[in-house]
């Protein structure tokens, strides 16, 4: 039983990270109907930005409080990824809006390759280790819960609350939802559609940067390939939860995290990704819109 609860906690932590990345996929899909395949690499970029900030802080300002260091890492990583995602939307996606559906998809894959190779060239192909930032561990009987897991879950929960508030309670979120439903009409009512879409990319990137920082902190290592496997898993989470649905993205992320850690605990760890994707396949067969996705209504 303790073992099970332990794995549940681990899965929850991992799932929070996937959920944060999945929101970026799902929001962009919701507003312009496109899968931003470069989003996984934005997540990876966030991890690297945090890593670099961490190294600078520890070499020049040794003894800086951990909380402050973490905050700086988060803020700078968010700025870097936001800028990057804003730029690729501006130069690579916006000119193709209104073009046939595959064009922006291919560009997104191109952007993904460009970014991961850029990091490979500038940062080197090897894994970058970081010393653990937070070491505190709590024991409840046989269950171990580390402070970093707690930080991850709390930061995720707080961000989701802020995010929910922005989307559902502010004019900005209203404009996003309106743009999602009828872009032309939103423009006619005075919503600046281009700016709204840009902001959506920036918001998704900021969440991905947080996830990247958390991932770095959790595993203690960053690699230029991180954009791929965790990125695809986050994408899977978005599809599993129902792409276009925000609660769906979080739910999907948590599920993927749980499946992954429980499978690794009870079955072969080598097949954990197979388990994840097999579940995705089942969901898509029996419920193609995902768990919380709304069925596409034919417009007349």
């Amino acid at each position: 039983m303790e073992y099970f609860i332990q794995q549940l906690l681990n899965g929850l932590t991992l799932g929070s990270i996937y959920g944060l990345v999945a929101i970026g996929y799902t929001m962009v899909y919701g507003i312009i109907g496109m899968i931003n395949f470069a989003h996984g690499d934005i997540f990876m970029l966030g991890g690297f930005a945090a890593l670099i900030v961490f190294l600078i802080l520890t070499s020049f300002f040794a003894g800086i409080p951990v909380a402050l260091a973490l905050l700086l890492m988060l803020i700078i990583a968010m700025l870097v990824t936001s800028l990057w995602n804003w730029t690729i939307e501006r130069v690579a996606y916006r000119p193709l809006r209104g073009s046939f559906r595959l064009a922006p998809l291919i560009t997104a894959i191109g952007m993904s390759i460009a970014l991961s190779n850029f990091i490979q060239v500038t940062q080197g192909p090897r894994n970058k280790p970081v010393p653990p930032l937070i070491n505190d561990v709590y024991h409840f009987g046989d269950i171990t819960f580390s402070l970093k897991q707690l930080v991850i879950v709390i930061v995720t929960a707080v961000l989701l609350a802020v995010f929910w508030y922005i989307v559902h309670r502010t004019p900005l979120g209203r404009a996003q939802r309106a743009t999602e439903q009828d872009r032309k009409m939103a423009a006619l009512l005075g919503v600046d559609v281009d700016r709204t879409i840009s902001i959506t990319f920036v918001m998704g990137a900021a969440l991905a940067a947080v996830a990247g920082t958390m991932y770095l902190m959790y595993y203690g290592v960053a690699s230029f390939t991180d954009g791929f496997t965790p990125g695809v898993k986050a994408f899977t989470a978005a599809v599993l939860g129902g792409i276009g649905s925000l609660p769906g993205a979080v739910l999907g992320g948590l599920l993927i995290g749980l499946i992954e850690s429980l499978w690794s605990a009870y079955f072969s760890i080598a097949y954990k990704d197979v388990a994840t994707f097999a579940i995705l396949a089942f969901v898509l067969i029996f419920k193609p819109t995902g768990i919380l996705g709304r069925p596409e209504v034919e417009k007349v």
Partner: protein
Amino acid sequence: MASGTTTMSNDTILKVEHLSMRFGGLMAINDLSLEAKRGEITALIGPNGAGKTTVFNCITGFYKPTMGMITLNQKSGKQFLLERLADFEITKHAKVARTFQNIRLFSGLTVLENLLVAQHNKLMKASGYTILGLLGVGSYKREAAAAIEKARYWLEKADLIDRADDPAGDLSYGAQRRLEIARAMCTEPELLCLDEPAAGLNPKESLALNTLLRGIRDEGTSLLLIEHDMSVVMEISDHVVVLEYGQKISDGTPDHVKNDPKVIAAYLGVEDDEVEEVISEELEGGAR
């Protein structure tokens, strides 16, 4: 943007001059000129395919006219040449709002949110485009309260106040029509263009619509509407323009237009006596 090329008396809000719109070989509108007076309801009628919606699309920037000039004359005396503005600028600067033949509400948003989207620019300006602003720091709170107040005002007018928090998609057809008009009014237009607002309404809903439109006119917004429902047109219009094959065939008060032989011929075909009877009965019925 303002232009002084035409002299216009201040009671004209919209002046269309020599407007032509060609789609390949089809002349959808041919040298059309018309005027809409400030504070009046002007109706644009005509048989199917006469070019009414095309005129609307030219006025609201969806089409760039092949030829002609469309001048909007604001209360302040500012003039805009609409054919030179992009569609969102027409809403934002020239203060022209429109609705469509088919309903285009944000059906997933609540009724109130639909009206707040229409006040988006004002709210964003008040928030100073910052997260802190959106969270209620500075003038945002006051502005947001004012926006909700305005939305409530139009919901009262449109008789939708009880449905404010329902998703717009759950409203009945007639209520959705009224909500579209209320939403357009929240952009504070000087000229409101309605494309067949009464289409598909039952007589009771039609009556409610008439009341709403008159209320809008009495508050100083001029209306231009395309309508097939003669009971609506004859009942509420101050001025009627009749189109056929992209040209104006009649222009005047509802009574004048109704008795114009050209109009009768256009609507009925000259020979088909039976249809003529039915429609003229309807026209009379509407005028009562």
